[in-house]
């Protein structure tokens, strides 16, 4: 397997609603620069919006790591959202369409997974949550 190269990396804070907008804009710029098409960029940015807002609302704020990747001839973008919030007790339930513990539509996590090529979630109750997504050209 070809080794994967990280072409660029940037960490942004998620502390307020305006930061969610910033992370989205940055994700859009990096994805466009990586050569992703309009549909792929839109999907990635929308998933980004969901996960950044989850980190803000449920995680009490966190960070977004944006990486531009090159895997052989494939180019892609990977985003990692991290927070030190309460964590998710039942990930399967949280990933269910329509489930929300707040007042959302309950489609953020499951939708973000459908909108991404790669998706992984890791959460420890009392410690926090990390969600990683990637979209490839």
């Amino acid at each position, binding site marked *: 397997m070809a080794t994967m190269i990280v072409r660029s990396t940037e960490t942004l804070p998620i502390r307020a*609603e305006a930061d969610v907008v910033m992370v*989205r804009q940055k994700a*859009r710029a990096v994805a466009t620069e990586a050569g992703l098409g309009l549909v792929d960029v839109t*999907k990635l*940015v929308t998933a980004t*919006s*969901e996960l950044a807002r989850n980190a803000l609302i449920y995680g009490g704020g966190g960070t977004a790591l944006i990486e531009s990747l090159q895997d052989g001839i494939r180019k892609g973008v990977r985003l990692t959202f991290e927070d030190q919030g309460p964590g998710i007790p039942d990930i399967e339930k949280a990933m269910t369409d329509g489930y929300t513990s707040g007042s959302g539509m309950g489609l953020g996590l499951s*939708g973000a997974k459908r909108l991404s090529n790669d998706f992984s979630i890791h959460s420890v109750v009392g410690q926090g949550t990390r969600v990683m997504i990637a979209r490839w050209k």
Partner: protein
Amino acid sequence: MIGGEAGKMALYQAVLDNEKALLDEWVKEQIGAFSRQGAIRETELRQQCETFLRLFVQAIRDGNTTDLRTPEWEAVLRFLSDVSSSRGEQGFSPSETATFVFSFKRPLFTALGKAHQDDGKALADAVWEATAILDRLGLHTMDVYLKTRETIIARQQEDMLELSTPVVSLAEGILALPVIGTLDSARTQVVMESLLQRIVETGSTQAIIDITGVPTVDTLVAQHLLKTVTAARLMGADCLISGIRPQIAQTIVHLGVELGNVTTKATLASAFAVALDRQGMKIVRSKPQA
């Protein structure tokens, strides 16, 4: 203690004795520091410097130089606040604003050097004293500058909230709301409320929400849109959502959002045609096509 009463008196005397030269040098220093030509008029700048010098001398003479929060310094601080906030209003950069106070150092130190050519100790005292005061005055101008900029930004944000919610009437009974920009929570509230209010005011029965200018439609935006549609329906108006670009349509589907029984159209024009039809109206050509 370094400085102290001796430093203070030396400073006072040096400024008093060299007022004219200080003023000339100081103005020259600042004109040089402005990168933008004509950013400030020399006559205006000179006047500001004159006023500052006058108040500064008075404060040193009457006041104590270790605490600038005393009444003697009030006039100096107030004047600097005015200079600073007016520069902030006019879009001066932070350094262009801070320059006013900090550029006074060199001419002042030169004057002090002349006055104390033979007395190293007195010179050191006076320079120390002057530095301590000017640094604090400089920080004060920055505080005021930042507050001014923050106020401007807050005001602009409010302007944006209002500006970006133009509910327009397209025909009798038909309203349109072209939403442009991010539909974050604060703004969405304002946007949606203004639409509902106009529905009531005009008695409209068709409302078109055009989201051509909304870059991202996520579940929060969808939720806001659906809530508005429901509220509008309760007020007797049918909503249409237009401006759903192909990439947004695909994304919404993957997200799993269902817009249910809301009529959606790709363009505002096609949504308008539907609304007209529902109102029993149509657009006809009045002259044959050229």
